[in-house]
């Protein structure tokens, strides 16, 4: 995409909007903003931005509700930027379709990095048969993963887990989501399985399994895959 990316900011705090506008414009984004949920929904529909930054504590409609309504038609990344930092809020937002969740106060650098990751994977990820992350390459068609030149010996569950991560790379996946996708509905509470497979997968794909760089733990919420 060569056109300038437009980012919609939905936040009721003027200072945050100003800060975001300065930061994002300085990084080459085109910024529009709405100060309440209703405006946000309208602006999203009229401008079809390439990414939305959404606050949860809006004066008119709750952010989670807006997120749900947006997700009825909007497929591009939505990043939640909120002061709410409880695991419940984060998990709910991710389950409602948010790509990422950043709590206020935040570092602009962190926010920009997350925006880039979210955008990158939303653009390339769709039907690419081979995905590469550093020296790891995953061939989704032939079910083969390579670390450098070496072909990794993965069990079918391990590969299922890895391909789920790859398909959603850059995105935080909640424990429940992963368990449901890889193991099925009956296993949603079996976090222990997940821990075992994540540990095993890390041993195979990470340079240093005790300091993972690809398969990152998100405190109490789930995992994120990506460089």
């Amino acid at each position, binding site marked *: 995409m060569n056109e300038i990316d437009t980012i919609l900011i939905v936040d009721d705090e003027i200072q945050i909007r100003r800060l975001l506008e300065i930061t994002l414009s300085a990084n080459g984004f085109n910024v529009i903003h709405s100060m309440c949920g209703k405006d946000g929904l309208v602006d999203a529909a009229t401008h079809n931005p390439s990414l939305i930054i959404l606050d949860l504590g809006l004066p008119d409609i709750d952010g989670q509700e807006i997120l749900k309504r947006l997700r009825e038609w909007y497929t591009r990344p939505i990043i939640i930027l909120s002061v709410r930092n409880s695991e419940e809020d984060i998990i709910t937002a991710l389950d409602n379709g948010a790509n990422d969740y950043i709590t206020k106060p935040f570092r602009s650098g962190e926010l920009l990095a997350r925006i880039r990751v979210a955008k990158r994977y939303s653009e390339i990820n769709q039907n690419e048969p081979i995905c590469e992350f550093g020296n790891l390459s995953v061939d989704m068609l032939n079910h083969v993963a390579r670390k450098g030149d070496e072909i990794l010996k993965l*069990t079918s569950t391990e590969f299922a887990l890895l391909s789920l991560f790859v398909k959603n790379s850059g995105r935080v996946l909640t424990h429940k989501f992963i368990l449901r996708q890889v193991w099925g509905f009956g296993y949603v509470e079996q976090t222990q399985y997940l821990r*075992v497979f994540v540990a095993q997968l890390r041993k195979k794909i990470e340079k240093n399994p005790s300091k993972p760089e690809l398969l990152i*733990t998100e405190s109490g919420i789930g995992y994120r895959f990506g460089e």
Partner: protein
Amino acid sequence: MIAKRSKRQLKLIESNTKLIQYAIVVILVGITTLVCIPISNAQGYHVVSFVMLFVVSVMATFLGIGPILLASTLSSLIWNFFFIPPHYTFHIDKTEDILLFFMFFFIALLNGVFTSRLRRQERLTREKETRTNSLFQLTKELSKSVGIDEVQKVTEYNLEKYFDVKSFLILQDGSNVLENKNRLVSEKKLGSKEFKVAVWAYENSKVAGAYSDSFSTCYYTYYPLVGTRIKLGVLYVKMEEPFSDDKQVLWNTFVTLISNALEREFLGELAKKGEILEESDKLYKTLFNSISHELRIPVATIMGASDTLMSHPSNSKIHNELNNEISIASLRLNRLIENLLNISRLESGRLSVRLDWYDINDLINKVVSDLKEELRLFKLNIGIQKNIPFVRVDFGLMEQILYNLLLNACQHAPLNSTIRLNAMHNDSLLTIEVLDRGSGFPDSALNNLFDKFYRVTGSKTGGLGLGLSIVKGFVDAHKGKVFAENRKNGGAKFIIQIPTPESEITEIN
């Protein structure tokens, strides 16, 4: 219900025994008459009078006064009718026999009356003794009981035991307003009409309700509890019938004793509340002072730095340095706010622990990477037990615990010294240790380290003294323990122990 039934039964038994007593009198006198017929034939009718007197005296020892009256009248008439000549008439020939007849009657009567009066006296003494005993028991138990709740229990128990009534207590709220709230059974509440009568009794310090002079149509009877200095509340009971005079006196004494005990506990609780208030006032002042200090310093830094930035628009060296200061100050502010929020989460009691299975390696990695900047100035030595099983903890809380402990170490250890972090799991107990080579703690501080807003005297670093109390609070939420000790060769050692089951699953193929 049980009490009511037994009372009714008791009455029934009582009236039955009276009838039985009269029957016994008639039967015994009849038998004696039959026995006396041969005696009279052999020994004469005078002997008969002695036998009959004897029987009446014996009866007097176990029968009531009514039956005894009957016994003496009946036996004297029988003696006259059957034994004194002329037989089968009430007519008496000899003057001495008339005299004997009257003497017989009086002796039988006096004998019976005195014996039963003696017994009544004895019964009264016994009752008095029970009363004294009940008062003694109540006094003893009341003086032993600590706290209003216990006094209430003792009250209800003793009133049921000695008066056979179910009683309830409602108390004033500390500002002289009666509360419709039973402290022991919270769902037990008075209806609004009944409660109004209770309030009336409380405010006027007068008995009200059933069997009293005021509001006698009420279901309950309300006794005001008045201490020597303050009104305490109302004791209400459901009575089946008014108390007898004796019982009423005893009841009033009970109520006075209960009131005094309640007053003692009530004033005690008030004093304690006052102490807590004073304590929290002191805490508030300390808090206010240190928070305003802790907040102002970073705010001052940010304000000052941004002002200088504006007035020196083109000096990039100053820009970098000031930006760095702003960044540090904002981090410090953020940490402060996090700590305050965590403390208030703990204080509100609404902290919920979300346990799930986690890999300790993950936890430690996360915390270490969050503290990357701070730890860069130290040598970090991480020792995690090999193949440590997954543990069931709250990740967010554990993260905060470790974060605070490591940050604490960074703040107190000399630069380039080694900070150690150990984790192991044994016998369903996860142990994590954080060791530094700082100055450790003075002995006097060891007991207070985990108190809110406590800061080791003379410690150089800023902070509110919340970090360790959050650690303690979160460890407690996991039902775990945290200790601090001084290391042999200098430095501090924090040990946390969290009970957690061991995952049975460690490897799946």
